């Protein structure tokens, strides 16, 4: 990061320990471009004149963007390959439940997408399995949105007409997720950087068969990436799947994770293949 940006962060009192420098610099540059400012000094003056901006900046580094079926390929693979594999294994083991964790669910689209796919599989294949779906985020405000499950029309663009018809009802111009779908998801606050717990309290003992953690790792500095990956790895059951964004694949490959399907960002847990080296 250039000195001027470090200087600005210092003035702002932001401790840049979690996020990667290039990510922060990019966000600050975007923000300045929006305001039509070119130097960090003028930006600092602007912030001093407009105290609201400061609060905005503080939340700036948290990225809450998410979408239904954000990566079409991943969700197709989930439907055609991953869930069938899990179901097959579970039936062999005579287990009763599938445990899924959406580790940074933001406003809930990801969790609802998974839930929709599971529901469809359940009706079509009728496996005798319960799905425990835990969705967590560290931001209580975003979680509240997720719990409400009401979305604008423009965010429904990737949801097929049939799914909209089946899982949503329109209320006051918003698309609201049906109660049946909602009740299948346990939303709770969980900070992936916590040192206290190793999995969300609502899941009691982790042991997940599938974890979604997309677009989280890339924002963090490498030390914290390691910490998060370690936590995710510990809370995975044997042969469980971990889904990350395709941009974060390299990171997990470096750490010795096995990719389930090449280039997909879907990894499978396998004993003794990982290292948490720096």
């Amino acid at each position, binding site marked *: 990061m250039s000195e001027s940006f470090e200087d600005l962060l210092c003035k702002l009192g932001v401790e840049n320990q979690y996020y990667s420098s290039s990510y922060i610099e990019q966000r600050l540059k975007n923000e300045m471009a929006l305001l039509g400012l070119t130097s960090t000094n003028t930006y600092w003056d602007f912030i001093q004149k407009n105290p609201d901006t400061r609060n905005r900046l503080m939340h700036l580094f948290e990225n809450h963007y998410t979408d239904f079926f954000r990566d079409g390929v991943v969700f197709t693979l989930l439907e055609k390959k991953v869930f069938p594999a899990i179901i097959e294994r579970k039936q062999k083991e005579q*287990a*009763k*439940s599938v445990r899924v964790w959406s580790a940074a669910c933001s406003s809930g689209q990801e969790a609802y997408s998974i839930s929709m796919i599971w529901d469809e599989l359940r009706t079509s294949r009728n496996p005798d399995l*319960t799905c*425990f779906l835990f969705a967590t985020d560290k931001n209580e405000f975003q979680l509240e949105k997720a719990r409400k499950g009401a979305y604008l029309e423009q965010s429904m663009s990737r949801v097929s007409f049939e799914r909209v018809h089946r899982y949503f009802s329109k209320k006051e111009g918003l698309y609201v997720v049906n109660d049946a779908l909602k009740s299948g998801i*346990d939303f709770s606050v*969980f900070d992936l950087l916590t040192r*206290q*717990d*190793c*999995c*969300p*309290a*609502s*899941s*009691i*003992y*982790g*042991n997940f068969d599938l974890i979604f953690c997309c677009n989280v790792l890339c924002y963090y500095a490498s030390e914290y990436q390691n910490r998060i990956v370690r936590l995710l790895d*510990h*809370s995975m*059951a044997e042969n469980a799947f971990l889904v990350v964004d395709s941009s974060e694949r390299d990171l997990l490959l470096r750490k010795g994770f096995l990719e389930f399907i090449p280039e997909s960002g879907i990894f499978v847990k396998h004993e003794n293949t990982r290292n948490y080296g720096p």
Partner: protein
Amino acid sequence: MALKDLKVGNQLRFGFGLVLLLVLLLSTFAWWQTYLLVEDSRTMYEHPLQVRKAVSELKFSISQMRLEYRNFLLSHSSEQKTLILKKTENLEAESRRQMNILQDRYLGPPQDIENLRRAFTNWIELRYSNLNIKEDYEIPNALKRVEESGDIGIARQELMRCVSVVEDFAIKKSLDLMAEATTIQRTFTERLIFMILFIVLLMGWLIFLLLRNIRNPIQELKRASEQFNNGKTDVRSDYNSKNEFGDLSRSLNTLFEVLESDLQIKNNVEIISRSMLNENEAALFCKQLIESLMLHTNSQMGAFYVLDNATNCFTCFSSIGIDRDCCRSFSAETFEGQIGLPLSTSNMQHITDIPENTPFQYATVSGILKPVEMVTLPISNGQIVFAVITLFTIKKYHKNDITVLETLKDTINARTNAVFYLSRLKQISVELEKKNELLEKQKNEVSELAIELKQQNEELEFQKVQLNEANNLKTTFLSRMSHELRTPLNSVIALSGVLSRRLKDKVSNDEYGYLEVIERNGKQLLDIINDILDISRIEAGKESINVTTFNLSEMIKEMMGMLQHQADTKNIQLTLSSDSENKTISSDFDKCMHILQNILSNAVKFTEDGSVSVEIFSENQSTKIRISDTGIGMSPEFLPFIFDEFRQAENKYAKQKGGTGLGMAIAQKYTILLGGTLQVSSELGKGSVFTLTLPHLPSDENSYENRYSIGKVLDVKVPNIQQNVQQPSTLLLVEDSEPMMLQMQEILQEAGYTLLTARNGIEALDSLSKMTPDAVILDLMMPEVNGFEVLKKIRENPATQWLPVMILTSKYVSKEELFFLKNNGIYQLIRKGGILKEPLLKEVYKMVLTGTENVKKPIHENPGRKILIVEDNPDNVLTIQALIGEDFEIVVAEDGLDGVEMSLQQRPDLILMDIALPRMNGVDAMKKIKERAETKHIPIVVVTASALSQDKDYFMAQGFDGYLAKPIDEELFEQLLNTIF
């Protein structure tokens, strides 16, 4: 110019009247001309036109008559002839009627009409004569008559000629009339154009006059007022007339004059005021004031008199234009002379017409001039008049000048006051400055002193830090030392114990007695070390207190029981009196015990015979315990130092009794920790009285008289773990959340447990009353009856008192709550989300095992068991070996790394682990061993000289399966082995 002087209203009326008149004239003229034209056309219509019409009719009738005649000649029937004759008659009548019209309308000579009539009658008569035709042969004759040359023809031509005369005249007449009308029209147009031109010109001239008369004065007034506005105050309106504008102009001029004079006054006032502001120095100010007053009031002489406080006289302070001799002084007391009246009334006085013989005179180059008028202006500071200004003129004062003075009166007053105050202030400030300088000097001296003091302070501060460091070093040193001392003692005490057991009946009684001495002295040394450790811990601030409610009387009775033997041998009576049978107190159980033990054992120790009595009573909401003895007592000089460390009465007897001199210090420090006081009174040779006052500390929970704890005796969490449950165990799962219940059910049933479930506290207790499970997994946060209450109920019921309970909660547990849970003997507290599936199942398994494994198996039934001792001190190894005996195979590792290696190679059944080890410390070694799948089931017990209670908690939290303090207590060690094997 007559018009100009007319009133504006009249001017306008005149103008508009003229316009109206002209319009009337124009319209009358137009009407007249139109009338003429109309008359002409009427004449034309009534005469020439009617005449021509009548002539035409006449001609037509004549032609008809001729035609009818021809028809008559041609017709054969008489009927037809009669009809034709009839027609002819009609035509004749018509012709005659036309001729009457002609007679009426014809304008030419009446002779013409007469001729016509005659010619017509002639023709008609001739025609009648031609009608009498009877036979056809007569027709050609008749026709012949009708021809041109016939008589009728001639008569007819004559008739036609008369008609054409009339007609021609009529045509000529109408042409004349037409020409006349055209002429009229032309002249009318010319006249109209001329008149309009005339009227326009006239109107233009009128408008010009009116405009000029209105605009000129307005412009003049505007010019004047604009110039006035722009500051030319001497400008006047030049317009002069008798009308309204003239009046306006005159009054405006008057206004300007008034304003000008006002402005002048204002200006003067302003200039004078400004000049007053220029100077603050009194003398210069007065001079300038008079100067500007004179300049702007046209005075020639002026003087400024000031009250001299010393003589109470007004003396001349400054003057201009007055001869030196004239400036005499006036007494202020007697209102003397010129200034008398102004002085007494405090008002300005204006004297006119000064007589010729005034002493004042104005010297000019050309002689002496006498002043004519003078003005006296008193200046007061609100109470007294302290200055007077007087001005003279050799002319007369203008009214404005006096107004200027009147206006300025207050300003002069205020300003003069200010200047004089200022001058006094200056004087005072100069004095103050001098004093300040003096003070500054003194201050500098003081600050130098302060700096010195500060330096001294810093030195002291530094010394204090050094002292603190030294004190900390002392505490650390004591703690280290005691730790170091405990390690060798371990061998001494434990081995002497082993020897005394093994050598019993094998050596002589004397020699056997030596062993006893060694053991007793070792234990005494351990007591001393423990005391030192206690003191250092208190001083390091590491002591915390746990408040519980307990039975104090019971505690003291127990203590007395322990001392009874010693008392009996010395023949001392121990008595206890209490104001109530079961005295309870809220305080720290262990610390109270420690304090009372110290005091009581001291009392017994230092009493040779007589009695030691304890009294318990309540006073002011606190509990007092008085312990009095009839012992050796202390001298008053020593009393102040009794609670100091390492002090003991300088007394041979005391020396003989031994002790570190720490007991009382610890007792007092603990008392302070508990918020109480410890007082002592004593008399040498007669005895001492210790009074301990303890307050009731607020207890966090109600009361825990029963202190349950599973594994309290041994601190062993788990015996050896086997991976399969031999018989299905029943678990009670208490959980209010449905999803969590489902999750737990799944893994527990999968693991083969039989499950009872309860959705809340009430259901849980209900379920427990029907059937007792092997263990309980309990949530804390539940509606109605929460986990704490359930736990309490479980512990209160004798049937479930020993039931292992695991707390599984997502609640953050506070220190107080944790204390409650500990005191109620929970097996383990596990946070939801803080554990993974496998460890959770393992914990449940361990818990069930703890609950079911009640039978102790004797050591000797397990020959061939292997124990790994990880210990770097060979003496300690020897000691432990001696304690274990020969029933076990013993392997020794000398450091942590070796320990890990050996554990893998030898696969022992138990590992005893020291903490302070070379290469790898005990905790890390334990973790390494537990990480390996092959060795992770081996129980590891920590053996350490770190004997603090928090150390124990720490080691257990790290994952050790048991804890043993050095020096190793033989009995406890045996119990440990029994539990594990």
